[in-house]
């Protein structure tokens, strides 16, 4: 499971004083909130990084016949295995058992859900073809978020795409040679550099993208296409 940023345990004490630790059949959510706050604060105190072991990879691959990938939230040091659960016209959604999802198109991450600071959607109609064609180019790129007030906002970038060296991608059941592509993007928010390893058929096998001010860089690697 991808670890949430924790809130101090003091939430619990305050919640209790505000009348939240209730029982009944109408306030389950609030109880759940208190529970989550405690749970995540415990995880925070332990300071554990959640790493996926090779055994877990083997187990997941043998149990689940669907495409599988590994996601790495660099800022939190959290990794998780995800299985594809839906394909909506090329937008493929992968999920953890705890209902956190990443959606990719052609292997490029376009949105997340349930990890906090989610990337709500993106405009990749220009950037994706340039990266997939493994050629140089300039592309507009948009990332859409919710702010803390629950209002949508868009960060617009211009990305210069560069072609790098060929690379072997060996992970799980993926064993292919791709080309490293880099997109250097400047625009409304902080500048960033995304990296993609693109197979001959245009599929992005492995990607490391800037996913917004809250999560910063997230890596996503296919281990069974």
């Amino acid at each position, binding site marked *: 499971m991808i670890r949430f940023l924790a809130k101090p345990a003091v939430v619990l004490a305050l919640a*209790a004083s505000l009348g939240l630790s209730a029982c009944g059949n109408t306030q389950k959510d*609030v109880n759940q909130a208190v529970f989550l706050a405690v749970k995540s604060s415990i995880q925070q105190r332990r300071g554990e990084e959640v790493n996926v072991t090779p055994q877990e990879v083997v187990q997941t691959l043998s149990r689940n016949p669907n495409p599988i990938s590994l996601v790495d939230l660099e800022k939190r040091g959290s990794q998780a295995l995800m299985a594809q659960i839906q394909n*909506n*016209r090329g937008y493929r959604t992968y999920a953890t058992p705890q209902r956190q999802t990443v959606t990719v198109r052609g292997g490029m991450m376009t949105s997340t859900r*349930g990890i906090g*600071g989610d990337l709500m959607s993106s405009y990749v109609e220009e950037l994706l073809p340039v990266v997939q064609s493994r050629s140089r180019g300039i592309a507009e790129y948009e990332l859409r978020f*919710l702010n803390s*007030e629950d209002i949508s906002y868009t960060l617009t970038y211009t990305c210069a795409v560069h072609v790098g060296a060929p690379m072997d991608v060996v992970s799980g059941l993926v064993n292919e040679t791709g080309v490293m592509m880099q997109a250097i993007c400047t625009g409304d928010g902080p500048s960033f550099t995304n990296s993609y390893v693109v197979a001959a058929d245009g599929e992005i096998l492995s990607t490391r993208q800037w996913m917004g001010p809250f999560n910063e860089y997230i890596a996503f690697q296919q281990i069974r296409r």
Partner: protein
Amino acid sequence: MGQVDRPDRRDILRVRAKSTAAWLAGASLLVLGNMAQARDPVPNFNLYGLTGLIDMPTAEVPSDATLSLTYSSFGDNSRGTLTFQITPRLTGSFRYSGIRNFAHKHSVDGSYFDRSFDMRYQLVKESRYLPSVVVGLQDFIGTGLYGGEYVVATKEILPGLKVTGGLGWGRLGSRNPLGTTGVRPTEILGEGGLPTYDRWFRGDVAAFGGLSYQFNDRFQIHAEYSSDAYTLESTSGAFTHESPFNFGASYTFRNGIQVSAYHAYGNEIGAQVTVHTNPRKAQIPAGNEPAPVPIKIRDPQGAYDLGWTSDATVIASTRSRLASAFERDGLRLEGLDLQATRATVRMRNDRYGRPAQALGRAVRAMTRALPDSVETFVVVPVVNGAPVLAIEFSRSDLERLEHEAAEDILARAKISDAFGQTPMPDQGAFPEFRWSLSPYLETSFFDPTSPVRADIGLRLKADYWLTRNIAASTSITKRIGGNLDAITREDPTGLPVVRTDYGKYASAGDPAIEYLTLAHYGRLSKDVYTRLTVGYLERMYAGVSAEVLWKPVTSRLALGAEVNYVRRRDFDQLFGLQSNVTRTGVIPDFNGHVSAYYDIGNGFHGQLDVGRYLAGDLGATVTISREFANGWKVGAYATFTDTPFEDFGEGSFDKGIRITIPLGAVMNTPSTEQTVFNINSLTRDGGARLNLDKRLYDKVRDYHEPEIAKSWGRFWR
């Protein structure tokens, strides 16, 4: 001048402990909002809980919507201040202060407590050559103990080094005046509580100023020259003014909490702590709740398969699959009208504070449960038994726009009134019993004999929905401990006693039935909502309450009317009633209001209620709120009635501040629960209304277009 009361040492400590407790109660709510917050630097706050140096203001301005709570103490002075950045340039503050060893006719045990309001406005923003310039009114409503006005300028002249200079009137012009601008009257207008406009910028004017140096984003030091002579504290209190020079240091923790220590006026030491939150930054963006299920894409041929329409088992299993999909996401499917190409769901949302998210979750579940031929989805949310919205989507649009910007699907959705297009509830959906048992904390502030009182206890709430729109509801409390029952205050009043007996209710009501009602919620026609409540309406009154609300689904304007027939309840708050005849007059049988509600735009909302209040006084209440898309609200209200100020008593008229905190936005997980903090003047009998918690407007409006559009980005969350 009254005689000087010298309370013994024990009393002083007791008073101090209580005002600290008041501050702590408020601080806990801000700390809650303070979690997980993106930090941006907030300027230094002073002893008055304003941006300032030590005792003097600066022209610095916190970022828009910053809500700050300060508790400070130096010498005999303690101040608790709530400050809100109302707009990027306008700041408002409310302060409750205590001065120990102070001789005043309202002093209790030698301590004088007072409320004050401040306003500040930034005239000029700091630029390369110009300083920031702020004009401020201090304690501009009320008795004017802290009354003063100022114009102040602040400029950062070297990195980290800020220079402040200003001119002050009133208190801030009391030491070494440079000159004078007219005559400053000293009489108090009315019974206090009125704007002291006759004093503003009049009388002696003096200069003040200072320096601050910021070593890094945590630590800064200050030095100032104060133009406040502390005249009243010196003559009526134990203050000795030895020097106009004050010195201080502030440390800001990583979570934004500021602590400061001071050496003030030559012989006093002081300390302060300030907690900030900001409704626009107080939660993890997009929350932590689990991801929604993806939209399920149909088989291209599926749209033509209508074989299921005559198969009752398929229809029944579809219904139960949809109900369980809703349940997984915290929604309740109350009814389903399933046709070959169109499905309408009747839905209740008890989980998502932002209705757009509930709608999004509902249509995602529908794509997974409904037969492929169903192309049109209509979702009808029901609140308190009344359908409040019908929103129609084309299933093809949902499939096509799932990964696009959220406003794309809003532009394709059809929003209409649910009247006449709401499916009846499924067989077996009612009767339904809902209940909860939770601890409660009830507080009473600003009683001079004990500025803070509180009770804790358990509250059992239950609703028994007999049919889709008739509910029997109750709330029963059992006190565990506290001191609310010790209220003995009996205020002079020129009105029938409608609220000032609260002490008797607090001490006799254990256990208490807060309410026990039978209510009917209805839709009279398109745009019109009704409520009829009968029974024990609130802690002090039983009777009948009828309300009608006109609110078109896409309108910013709503109009309402409410009429109540009331009978006074027994103090023990069980089943007995008592006469409406009180020691100071007869409570009329009927009261009521007509109301207008308007979404002004730019995050502001206005409400005007005109009518007859509980005590029979006629008048109007004006409420202006700053509202945030995530559900936070910070509002102020004032009630003006035909009650003469001297009959109303201390405060002259009813006014207050109301802060609504949506728990979802501070817990980072969805919730429809919210906590409302009311900070008002002393409870008086003028301008009082029934306390009904199920008035129609807020419930209905949440689902109407102007509201759901504000946080529409939550639709795909």
